[in-house]
């Protein structure tokens, strides 16, 4: 399997911009308080790049991806601030997805032609009463202006591409007749059939067995080479991130605590939370006692005043208790939201 870190580094320029998220906040306004599921996060994704999003359950990974798709359940959810700039192929000035109406023609066409998404649980996005064929062919007809025969031919090609044997037969089957691995492949085929520039993969292999996970990850890498798309790869599994991604952002309680290239996340990490995560994972062949992060993730309705990680942080200082840290620049490609780096420059608050 090809490893992104081991191949030559790609060089990106301004022309490679695809997605720029700036100070995005998505909150859930509930009767008993506001859940700041995503709170003031910023990141970039470039053409052809795979960006990993990693963090523990409830830290805002899925809400980030739903925000980009403009599919946050509203009410109670709402994008309350910030921008999601998306650079369409055709022109140089981006659209701000955060400012589009959820069901506007423009947003629909972005969802159909530009951005596709695959989920952890394929059954939640496959329709159980429609055949696999129906679900792949209809969107192709809709978005690519093809007749039934052409769309069917493309559907068979897509199923072939994602490694599904006897594709013509599969077209007439229903999702429940397929194994978990096959369903995930069907979902990938559906997502790719519109030839998206951005694929959001939200825990695409978490529900799968390891041997099937390995097949799907390999498939995704091959397809990325072929389609030259960007991938936002969401997972809680750092080891999978290490295998799939060029850059990573680590999320904690709705915020991005560290952004860096994959090598730096593993070997030159700066945020105590990133370090804690890596030390918590058992490593094969190393029979040392694990050093867990103390405590557990706080409730999002009831966050500490200062740094959200402070109550669990082994390097906590006085300033951390009362003041939320800004994001400090470690190097051009590495940022950390931590007071330990208070002598560094701050990342600009607004672009």
């Amino acid at each position: 399997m090809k490893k992104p870190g081991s191949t030559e580094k790609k060089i990106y320029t301004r022309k490679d911009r695809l997605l720029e998220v700036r100070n995005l906040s998505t909150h859930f306004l509930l009767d008993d308080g506001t859940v700041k599921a995503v709170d003031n996060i910023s990141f970039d994704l470039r053409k052809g790049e795979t960006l990993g999003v990693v963090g523990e359950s409830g830290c805002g990974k899925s809400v980030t991806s739903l925000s980009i798709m403009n599919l946050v359940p509203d009410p109670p959810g709402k994008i309350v601030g910030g921008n999601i700039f998306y650079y369409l192929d055709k022109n140089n000035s981006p659209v701000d997805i955060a400012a589009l109406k959820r069901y506007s023609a423009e947003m629909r066409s972005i969802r159909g032609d530009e951005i596709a998404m695959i989920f952890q649980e394929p059954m939640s996005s496959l329709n159980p009463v429609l055949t696999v064929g129906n679900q792949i062919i209809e969107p192709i007809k809709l978005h690519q202006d093809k007749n039934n025969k052409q769309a069917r031919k493309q559907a068979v090609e897509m199923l072939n591409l994602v490694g599904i044997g006897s594709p013509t037969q599969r077209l007439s089957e229903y999702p429940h007749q397929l194994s978990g691995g096959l369903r995930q492949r069907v979902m990938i085929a559906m997502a790719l059939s519109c030839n998206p520039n951005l694929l959001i993969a939200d825990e695409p292999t978490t529900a799968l067995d390891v041997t099937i996970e390995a097949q799907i990850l390999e498939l995704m890498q091959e397809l990325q080479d072929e389609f030259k798309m960007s991938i936002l790869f969401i997972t809680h599994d750092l080891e999978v991130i290490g295998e799939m991604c060029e850059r990573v952002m680590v999320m904690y309680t709705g915020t991005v605590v560290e952004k860096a290239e994959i090598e730096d996340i593993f070997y030159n990490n700066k945020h105590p939370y990133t370090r804690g995560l890596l030390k918590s994972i058992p490593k094969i062949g190393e029979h040392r006692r694990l050093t867990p992060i103390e405590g557990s993730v706080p409730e999002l309705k009831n966050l500490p005043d200062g740094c959200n990680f402070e109550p669990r942080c082994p390097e906590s200082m006085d300033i951390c208790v009362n003041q939320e840290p800004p994001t400090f620049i470690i190097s051009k490609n590495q940022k950390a939201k931590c007071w330990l780096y208070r002598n560094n420059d701050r990342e600009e608050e607004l672009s």
Partner: protein
Amino acid sequence: MNENIKILKVTGLKKYFPIKKGVFRKTVGYTKAVDDVSFFARGEETLGLVGESGCGKSTTGRCIIRLLDPTAGKIELEKNGDYIDIARIEKNKLKNLRKDIQIVFQDPNSSLNSRMTVRDIVADPLKAHKIGTHQQRTEKVKDLLERVGLNSSQMDRYPHEFSGGQRQRVGVARALALNPRFIICDEPVSALDVSVQAQVLNLFEDLQDEFGFTYLFIAHDLSVIEHISDRIMVMYLGKIVEVAPSNEIYMNPQHPYTEALLGSIPDGDPHSTKVRKTFSGDVPDPSDPPPGCNLHPRCPYSSDYCRKVEPELKELPDHKDHYVNCHSAEELNLEGYQKSQQV
């Protein structure tokens, strides 16, 4: 307890679930969830059980504690030098078994009664066995909660007021209440975040050091199982395909399925240039397993012989304690887990 005593001996264990169809619920076939499995556990060891979803791990665990009645086979538990066959204990005498064997489940949310306080949850087994006075039970509950790293002042709260990791600790405290010797851990950390998973794994290790428990530790995460286990059993489609000490099985696997599992581990090292050796295809339906060796449709090394004749689990002649269920054991040059080569 002597570490060399076999505290549990399982022989020829089978569990078939009938598949019923039609208005008359006629049995049309069987899911062979566990199909002729034999193994043993030594005192004070952690015996890992790993394999993909649906291979029969939980069913094996549930038969041992008799949450399920086995279809066939013996499950012998050592007691004061003698063995009693758990498979043959009558239903109304099962209660006593709980003093020896306990189970901790994967999902702390659904395995704890949400309408009971933590105090009542942990005291429940003591009450059921009429152990101690109310006051003594309260003392014991406090003690157990502190043991598993919870604050006993929180014992009058309900499960939903605790985090996932804390709820799992409550489940562990309940399992410890009757001082069992053998604990079945059915994916006890799979639902937990990694930072909390590490806390709970450490807890299991500490409790074993303190009380000398024997664990049957079920997991599907290959890093977790390697970390916690002394010996590991690999299961595939209702059968045990390989058993060996943990280091041995990772470095010197002798079954093609074990090799494929190890090859599937993402190594999480961006510097690594490891080329993965993975398996193609899906796990077959356990109601209709392939003939011969049930791995043959997916096995890259399979021969005509494998398609016809079923192999047996046998100890390797020159590797003590290493059991393999493959016709070609020791003939194939299989690859173990490779630590990534750093640049």
